[in-house]
């Protein structure tokens, strides 16, 4: 029996081994040849350039950076920028996308049509154009530094960015954070307890208000008791621009807005299809229980749409991460922009492109893993 089975499978096994072998051979040859020819043409290869001082300027970095740092650090700053803008965009696009999706199936004619127009426009225009549009509108809209808009306090808005005071934490601020943590923990406990009481007796505590009081009150009290251990580095206009404080640059803002608007249109469609996939009986049952439209949407419909939404939305998240590479067109120093400069200075395109691919692959595999885990959790459990 066993031997005959082996006989049956033998031809298939042989061909598969041959194909795999051939692919490996070609890959090895390709690698070997590339190496040999790069050497013959005196083109540097390998990753040694990453340890050399780059001298390239980066205006927007989350960690301290100067042109005296290495190419490796510059690329790392680029990865952080890509991650930062992607993560923030994913969060905001999700919120906006859900709102748009719910609006599309709204019984309010105007709301539904507005959402439909938004989705159709954004979905059908290339993202690059959306980005150019956001960026040039922002620049046209914002005044020069000397004519900054000051909404209140020490906040300045101009075409170099939004400047806000940077908090400088003094000794003792840790205690304030600690009391905040304690207040949060107490609130969670309180909310749970209140829910249990409501389930048992039908009557709960006004836990929301008490928690709010705790979360605001305790740290504030600690802050004053400890002698206000927080100072601010306030931006001041010096010469051409503001110095000090923190800044949100127009390139980052335009990229964020563009990515969020674009991706939210796709997520909105996922949510709409998810909502429409929920059986009408669910709605009728919820109405029969006397629930109002708000709670019906939040507690009955939306949780069920997740099963339909998540796989499609995972794709939109990974697209968003890849789309963030368009940053270079509007001057935001993401990983592709900085890597491009590194190629320009070293011409080690193969290495840098390899690094880009590795980073995008890693980010997107992680996104997919997390989303798949989440997806598995919300699927119907059939017994």
């Amino acid at each position: 029996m066993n031997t005959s089975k082996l006989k049956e499978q033998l031809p298939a096994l042989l061909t598969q081994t041959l194909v795999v072998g051939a692919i490996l051979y070609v890959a090895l040859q390709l690698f070997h040849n590339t190496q040999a020819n790069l050497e013959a043409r005196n083109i540097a290869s390998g990753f040694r350039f990453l340890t050399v001082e780059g001298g390239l300027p980066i205006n927007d970095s989350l960690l301290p950076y100067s042109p005296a740092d290495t190419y490796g650090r510059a690329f790392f700053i680029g990865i952080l920028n890509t991650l930062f803008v992607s993560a923030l965009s994913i969060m905001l696009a999700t919120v906006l996308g859900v709102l748009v999706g719910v609006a599309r199936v709204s019984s309010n004619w105007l709301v539904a049509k507005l959402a439909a127009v938004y989705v159709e426009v954004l979905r059908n225009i290339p993202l690059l154009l959306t980005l150019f549009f956001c960026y040039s509108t922002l620049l046209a809209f914002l005044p020069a530094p000397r004519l900054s808009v000051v909404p209140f306090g020490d906040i300045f808005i101009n075409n170099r960015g939004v400047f806000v005071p940077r908090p400088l934490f003094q000794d003792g601020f840790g205690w304030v954070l600690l009391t905040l943590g304690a207040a949060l923990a107490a609130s969670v406990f309180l909310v749970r307890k209140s829910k249990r009481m409501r389930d048992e007796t039908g009557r709960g505590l006004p836990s929301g208000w008490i928690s709010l009081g705790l979360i605001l009150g305790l740290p504030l009290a600690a802050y004053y008791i400890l002698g206000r251990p927080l100072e601010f580095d306030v931006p001041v206009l010096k010469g051409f621009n503001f110095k000090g404080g923190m800044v949100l640059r127009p390139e980052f803002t335009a990229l964020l807005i563009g990515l969020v608007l674009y991706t939210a249109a796709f997520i909105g469609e996922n949510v709409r299809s998810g909502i429409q996939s929920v059986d009408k009986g669910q709605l009728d049952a919820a109405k029969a229980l006397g629930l109002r439209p708000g709670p019906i949407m939040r507690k009955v419909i939306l949780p069920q749409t997740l099963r339909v939404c998540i796989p499609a939305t995972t794709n939109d998240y990974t697209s968003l991460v890849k789309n963030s590479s368009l940053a270079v067109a509007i001057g935001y120093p993401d990983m592709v922009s900085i890597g491009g400069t590194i190629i320009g200075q070293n011409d080690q395109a193969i290495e840098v492109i390899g690094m880009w691919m590795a980073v995008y692959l890693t980010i997107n595999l992680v996104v997919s893993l997390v989303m798949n885990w989440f997806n598995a959790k919300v699927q119907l459990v059939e017994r």
Partner: protein
Amino acid sequence: MKLIGKLFLALALTAMVATGALAGTLEKVQKSGELVLGVSEGVAGFSAPDSNGRWAGFDADMGRAVAAAVLKNPEAVKFVPLASKQKIVAVSSGQVDLSRGTTWTMKRDCKQGVDFTVVLFYDGQGLMVKKSLGVDKATDLNGASVAVVSGTTSELNVADFARANNIKLETVVFESKKEAFNAYVAGRADAFTTDVSQLASLRAGAADPDEHIILPEVFSKEPLSPFVRHGDQQWKDLVTWILFGLIEAEEKGITQANVLEVKAKSTDPVVQRMLGASGDVGSFLGLDNDWLVRAIQAVGNYGEMYDRNFGPKSALKIPRGHNNLWTKGGLIYAMPIR
């Protein structure tokens, strides 16, 4: 946006090398009947399509001169526009046979698989600001923000300049020259930086050219030289001497209009040799003896090329300066053709 392009280049490089060593470029060009020339994505004066869609400019003329000498047809040039960061890989991988003038640096020459030929344009990096800013020297720009194009030497030079002068400059780096310039015009940056010749080119095309001034400081040397793939000595020699020939032609007063007449009548032994009336210098390059005559007939001598693209006959009107002949106080100097 350019990611696909870069990937393609890398793949082209890999695929190309997988087939083993390349044949000589001269042989390849003669066999295919066309010269593949890497040009800019559109910089007036150097290489940009004109109103008829024909590539015009100094670099385009240089390519036509080489095509005329090698293929006897100045129009047998295939123009391939390349972004700054693609230009070197495109040559080292053999995707293009010859590239437009680019800053000759030690690293590019020694480590990046290309060889430079002849400096055809001595340039330097400068800064352009709006007149209304009230700045008249570069060091006054402390704290200003500067728009730059990604993947160029300018990006690093401006950082070096700031470090050397102990001032702070915030750079905003864009993929294309157009976007960088637009951001500067829109007021996102106080200044725009690139080679002075290109600043002049962009200013000439601006809505109101008088609104912008180019600051006097030139803070880098940008010797722009066409370049070829490293390791093809024959091809490098050929391009080098065709370019020297165009320079020598200006020195000897040989022009597009009079080249045939000079060849027939000149008694100057140097002129006779270079125009093929005597000797056999053409054979040194693997060409016939009329190589330089054809090049001059196609585009004129170096001075004519300059006048047409940068000089009084152009919109740019860049003074010859360093780019005058050595006999007239400039740096343009051809090695002896003998």
